[in-house]
């Protein structure tokens, strides 16, 4: 069966390390963009989303996969071993459109780290609706443009942010680009 599958990282150790540092930096500096490399994604995933999955998911991470991305399911399972899980039990959610964040785990007061991380594929991280980000990691408010989020995203996000230190974290992917929005960041429409 693996014959039908596109390969994972060309250099599994170095590519995963490099992708991780990109995600780490994006989580540490919300809205900063990085390029990933080393993998060509199975449809309908973009390269960055595939790289993030290969970097972070494995048999210890229950994964909810957006039904719209079902075509990538075999590839993800083969290369990561991540078991499928309903949204409430998922450590990662791989989505092609913003899922209902209230269906995902936000952690508990004593274990806020058990919340879900959403890997969200969007159309663009350079054009589209402009948002102002503010919070840890940002010396001053940062303006980002994202194409592919719902029109009321800022309001949805603020409900997530208001639960801080609980809440879900978001890794945004478009093409080979990625950025991140940790729960600690506050978002307004620009």
């Amino acid at each position, binding site marked *: 069966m693996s014959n039908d599958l596109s390969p994972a990282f060309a250099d599994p150790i170095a590519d995963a*390390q490099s992708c991780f540092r990109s995600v780490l930096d994006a*989580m540490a500096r919300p809205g900063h963009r990085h390029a990933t490399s080393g993998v060509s994604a199975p449809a309908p995933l973009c390269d960055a989303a595939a790289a993030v999955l290969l970097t*972070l998911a494995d048999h210890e991470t229950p994964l909810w996969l957006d039904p719209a991305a079902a075509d990538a399911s075999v590839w993800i399972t083969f290369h990561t071993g991540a078991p499928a899980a309903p949204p409430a039990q998922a*450590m990662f959610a791989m989505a092609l459109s913003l899922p209902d964040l209230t269906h995902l785990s936000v952690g508990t007061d004593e274990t806020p780290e058990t919340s879900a*991380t959403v890997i969200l594929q969007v159309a663009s991280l350079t054009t589209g609706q402009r948002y102002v980000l503010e919070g840890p990691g940002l010396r001053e408010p940062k303006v980002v443009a994202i194409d592919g989020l719902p029109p009321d995203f800022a309001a949805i996000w603020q409900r997530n942010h208001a639960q801080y230190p609980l809440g879900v974290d978001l890794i945004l992917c478009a093409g080979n680009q990625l950025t991140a929005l940790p729960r*600690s960041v506050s978002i307004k429409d620009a």
Partner: protein
Amino acid sequence: MKGYNFAYLDEQTKRMIRRGLLKAVAIPGHQVPFGSREMPLPYGWGTGGIQVTASILGANDVLKVIDQGADDTTNAVSIRRFFARTAGVATTTATAEATVIQTRHRIPEKQLREDQIIVYQVPQPEPLFRLESSRVETKRMHGLSDYGLMHVKLYEDISRFGQISISYDYPVMVNERYLMSPSPIPAFDNPKMDMMPALQLFGAGREKRIYAIPPWTRVKSLDFEDHPFRTINAPHPCGLCGATDSYLDEVVTDNHGGRLFVCSDTDHCAERRAAGHVGTDGFQEAAE
């Protein structure tokens, strides 16, 4: 190194630690439990910092390792060798050249940059452990942001000594939410943590927890309005380079009260001396 993965840890373990690091960054100051592995160095000797460093390190990184501010203390040498051996990365003693700095007990004097990461070795990540020994209880307190116990301790200090008596591992509030141990750095270094341009990662191997402070994050040393936080340092310039703004080690030079005060940050001191600064006990740099 033959028989071992790049940077010693297997990829599965790195993924587990990396996931923990991302959550730690998303919740600044919160202690994230992780499946700390047994390392080939003893617990208490930097196993947490080593696991964090091993999980972030890439072939292009340049690593600096310091202990007590110095690159040539035996444990710093040992850890630097470990990574040179298992990851083949370039190492340096120059703060400015490093992309990753692993440290025990100090923050370098030179301001760190946005493109650097500092990894602290942490012996006891729980800032409340002296006041409440049960981790079950302290976890509950962090959950509720209930830090009354620490405020009472500081207040009792003031009534007994006229001042807060903590001089290292001085507790901080991170992002106005979590009380955090800065690791046993001298209180002198605490202000460097506030709004630091570099990402700060903390690893406690034996206690199996990691935590983080993103760049440009508020880190406030606990104090009271009428007893503001103060740093402590020896009231001398560095005997070797004459620096007046660096943290000083005290060296006993004889048995009759003789003392020499020198920069704890050996790279900082060497750089100043190379630039021609000379302290009262110093001399023009001779070859080794």
